[in-house]
């Protein structure tokens, strides 16, 4: 399903904090995450055990999700992080962090691991 | 070239040292450990400069400029993509400023508009401007922490507080700027009259000048209160000036006794040529000719293509932006309950009546104020002139030929109406040295160190490749211009910082500061504790945050 992704800063999902003090697992839990409206939850036929597969022309990533009725329908929010970086992009020398068109589906695959993301960066394939 | 402990002997130069009444005498200057001495203590390692046929003068001193403040950065930001600004003003980087000042023979500058909250920024900039000695004046005109004391006329308390502020911020003196005019934030209308009570405060703006002047005298600070008149370049400014002059007449303070390290004046008027925009300077001339209590700096106009406006004067700024209707790209900042700042660019034109008046006023005042020790040369740099205009400006003062030639294509109305356009008087070379060197030092209370060549003074010296005695300053003005364009040597604390084309930037100047008369801790804490409370209640930071954590090696305290 097509959605709009916005990256945001949240005090409890702050990559700076995570890098600072936490274990990798904890970091993955707090940063590999998307927030969506319960109505979208229904539209995506999600069940709590599923994960979200988010993708666009620039890349893709699998993350956990949480429902939050404050979030408008059709919007997915993610903390600024390595995970969100998989779908952000550059336009006119600016990094686009907001209003990013993405495709979101439920998946049974586990959330993308930190080392997978780092390997992706290091690998030569673009 | 500039090793420590290098002793210098400048031989056979023609010396002008107005302070010691030496007017063009052939004389040796001896320098040991950065100080001018009568005799060397040892004869080893003396470097000699042969100054035969050259003229020796003290290094120049700027009593009023704006080069190290946050506002300067707003100018740089506005000028970032401005070709004219970048090519003619070198983007005014710290290094550029230092180089230009040294090239023009300066070793000391006074940053004339610093809000206490931003003092750290200025000090930080100072440290990164090499070679020059510097001082800053704290702008307290709109300083709300003082409102209550001004209302209650607690002048001694004000003096105590100023002293503490100066020692925290490492300021040198104070500037009074459009007193409490920033109350305007509430009603967006320029005030009519500084003789009336304010709306958000309960006293007359004009009283603030008086109170501060008295406070500075209690502290006996090296420099007097440095006053900016609200509404410069505007007729309103003339009225405000007249109000202040009247106020000063009523101020009964004992006449100051002038000594080597003491100033004469109790009030310094900033860029006085901008105050009578009708071109009639009688008020200032008469007042100064009858009264040694006031002195003025004259900010000469160089008619540059582009000049940065650095001001905190709302009336002036709204006038000037009105006249540039299309230009809206002002940077305006209101700062921490201490006042506003306005930044943009302007252009001075020889066919603009008003610009010519500003130009003419400076010359008029320079010629007609009798006691040249009451006048200081400035540029209100960078607002009124570029430093590299100085050689040209000097010729207008020394040579009527140069001046009349320059006036040829000036505004017609100006040439017809204004008396200076027919005045044939000129200054002599000694007067020029007073204006640019000795008098600023005196007004700043620094004659003990600067602006003269007597024994014990700091060895801040210029050597000009010209023998003033052998030329006709009127006719040979081109030669004078050249001599000042290429000052052969600039010496700072005994170090040669400029020799011909070569400028050495590895010397670090000092930051001059003063807290004035000493008060006991008890006296101080009575006042300061109240101020602490004020800060705690109304400020975004605690009073102690004003403390400047700066290495002593950068500082020089003036008692």
């Amino acid at each position, binding site marked *: 399903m097509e959605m709009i992704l916005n990256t945001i800063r949240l005090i409890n999902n702050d990559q700076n904090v995570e890098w600072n003090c936490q274990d990798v697992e904890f970091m993955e839990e707090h940063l590999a995450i998307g927030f969506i409206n319960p109505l979208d939850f229904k539209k995506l036929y999600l069940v709590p055990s599923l994960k979200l597969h988010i993708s666009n022309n620039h890349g893709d990533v699998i993350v956990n999700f949480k429902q939050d009725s404050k979030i408008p329908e059709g919007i997915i929010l993610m903390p600024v992080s390595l995970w969100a970086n998989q779908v952000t992009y550059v*336009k006119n020398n600016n990094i686009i962090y907001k209003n990013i068109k993405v495709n979101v589906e439920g998946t049974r695959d586990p959330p993308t691991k930190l080392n997978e993301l780092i390997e992706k960066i290091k690998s030569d394939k673009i | 070239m500039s090793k420590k402990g290098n002793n210098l002997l400048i031989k056979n130069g023609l010396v002008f040292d107005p302070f010691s009444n030496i007017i063009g005498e052939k004389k040796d200057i001896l320098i040991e450990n950065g100080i001018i001495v009568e005799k060397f203590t040892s004869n080893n390692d003396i470097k000699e400069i042969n100054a035969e046929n050259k003229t020796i003068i003290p290094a120049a001193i700027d009593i009023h400029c704006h080069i190290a403040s946050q506002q300067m950065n707003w100018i740089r930001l506005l000028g970032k993509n401005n070709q004219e600004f970048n090519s003619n003003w070198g983007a005014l980087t710290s290094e550029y400023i230092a180089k230009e000042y040294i090239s023009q023979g300066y070793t000391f500058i006074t940053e004339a508009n610093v809000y206490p909250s931003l003092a750290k920024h200025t000090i930080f900039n100072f440290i990164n401007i090499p070679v020059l000695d510097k001082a800053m004046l704290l702008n307290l005109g709109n300083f709300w922490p003082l409102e209550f004391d001004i209302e209650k006329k607690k002048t001694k308390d004000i003096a105590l507080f100023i002293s503490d502020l100066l020692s925290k911020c490492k300021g040198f003196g104070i500037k009074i700027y459009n007193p409490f005019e920033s109350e305007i934030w509430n009603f967006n209308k320029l005030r009519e009259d500084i003789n009336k009570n304010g709306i958000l405060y309960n006293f007359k703006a004009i009283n603030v000048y008086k109170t501060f002047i008295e406070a500075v005298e209690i502290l006996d600070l090296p420099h007097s209160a440095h006053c900016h008149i609200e509404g410069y370049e505007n007729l309103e400014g003339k009225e405000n000036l007249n109000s202040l002059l009247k106020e000063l007449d009523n101020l009964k303070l004992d006449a100051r006794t002038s000594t080597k390290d003491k100033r004469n004046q109790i009030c310094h008027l900033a860029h006085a040529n901008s105050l009578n925009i009708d071109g009639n300077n009688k008020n200032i001339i008469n007042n100064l000719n009858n009264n040694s209590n006031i002195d003025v700096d004259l900010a000469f106009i160089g008619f540059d293509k582009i000049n940065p406006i650095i001001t905190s004067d709302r009336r002036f700024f709204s006038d000037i932006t009105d006249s540039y209707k299309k230009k809206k790209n002002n940077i305006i900042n209101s700062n921490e309950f201490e006042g506003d700042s306005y930044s943009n660019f302007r252009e001075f034109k020889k066919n603009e009546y008003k610009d010519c008046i500003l130009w003419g006023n400076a010359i008029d005042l320079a010629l007609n104020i009798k006691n040249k020790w009451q006048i200081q040369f400035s540029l209100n740099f960078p607002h009124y002139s570029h430093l590299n205009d100085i050689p040209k400006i000097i010729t207008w003062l020394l040579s009527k030929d140069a001046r009349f030639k320059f006036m040829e294509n000036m505004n017609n109305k100006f040439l017809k109406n204004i008396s200076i356009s027919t005045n044939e008087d000129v200054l002599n070379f000694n007067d020029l040295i007073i204006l640019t060197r000795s008098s600023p030092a005196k007004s700043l209370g620094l004659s003990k160190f600067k602006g003269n060549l007597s024994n014990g003074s700091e060895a801040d010296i210029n050597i000009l490749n010209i023998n003033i005695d052998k030329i006709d300053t009127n006719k040979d003005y081109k030669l004078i211009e050249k001599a000042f364009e290429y000052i052969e040597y600039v010496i700072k604390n005994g170090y040669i910082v400029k020799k011909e084309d070569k400028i050495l930037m590895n010397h670090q100047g000092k930051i001059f500061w003063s807290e004035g008369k000493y008060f006991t801790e008890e006296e101080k804490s009575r006042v300061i504790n109240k101020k602490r409370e004020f800060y705690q209640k*109304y400020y975004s930071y605690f009073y102690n945050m004003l403390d400047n954590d700066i290495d002593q090696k950068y500082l020089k305290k003036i008692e």
Partner: protein
Amino acid sequence: MSEQLKITCSGCSLLCDDIIIIKDDKEIKEILGACQKGINKFNQIKSKNRILSPLYKDKGGLKVLEWDLALNKAIQIIKNAKKPLIYGLSTISCESQILALKIAKKIDAFIDSNSTICQGKFLNIASEMGITTTTLTEIINKSDLIILWGTNIVESIPRLFSKILFSRGKFRMTGREIKNLIIVDIYKTASFKVMGTRDLAIIIRPNEDIELIKILKKAVKGDYTFPNEGISGIDKQDLERFKTFLLNSEHITILPGQALLNQKTNGDAIKELLELVNLLNNIKNNGRISLLMVGGHYNMVGFEHMALSETGKNQSIQFKNGESIKSDDNIISKIQKEDFDLSIIIGTDPISHFPLEISKILSSKPIILIDNKKSGTFLIATLILPTSITGIENKGLAFRLDHVPIQLKKIIEPPSLIQSDYELLQKILDRLNK
């Protein structure tokens, strides 16, 4: 023996100076008054992810180096580079920033700060259009309307509200009672939780802020009625109230956030907002309206000022033959064009902030990382030089978000053999000068 000190927090750009700590000779025992973010900053001291020795990556993985060797290695890598980048600089002191600029000048680098992809865009537009800004004490004492536009400061600058909204001022004696709040955002962020009945919550459709600003510009000029159906998801009544607030408040402060910076319109929303501010300042017959930029890193503003006074530019500075030259690049375009052969990253973590495509290019060339803790960038850096934490383990000057300079103090000793950014950069500069 333990002592109590009042210190300044460098957890974010607010630089709160009212934090109380209790410490003994070696360590901080207790921290009082800091927010969660501030506490996290102090947690860095003993973080298990702290870097405690220089590290070098070769084929066998990360190797611990002696300092002298590490510095030599750094110099060698730098000297081999023809087109180095220096990036970050928002979390070091001004003194260190000046040194970084000097190094950039020495090695003809391209130097840029985090501000380029953040609040710096505001200043760039202000350099063309001008700007009216203000500072915190002004807001405390004068503001009766605060507008958050696309910024969620409760989570980014946690104590800003308590300074500017929940405070009494000399001309605002009743405090919060008289200080109104408007928040514009695409959803009800945590910041909305402070709202009272008189405040105005504006939920706007994503990416339509510019429409709202344009409409407000028309409306405040008069002679304009809002469409009955409202615009961009905002009711007509709310639009009316917005306009009334703008016209009748005495002292308005707008805090613009990333949401405005990141409009697809590429800066146009900012231009419109600056125009709205100009317009209101001209037509209103009481009060004034100004902007307060809310960058997050504690010394992001500092770099702009240091760069301006040293080079005349606030960011994205290309040095050539020791002079700063004209360049239209920023850090992103330099990387995208692969116009670099080394990056020196100071106190930041671009790998966690840059899109994948950019990170990939960045990681394809050597990286020297100067920082105090592990990060995404740490995982791919070639040479890692650890430093102490400014504001805790060493002192320095920083600029608060409103451009007011604040002194940071040294409170405790850094871990052994760990020097400050300043000392480290000075050593690098000295060795380069040799």
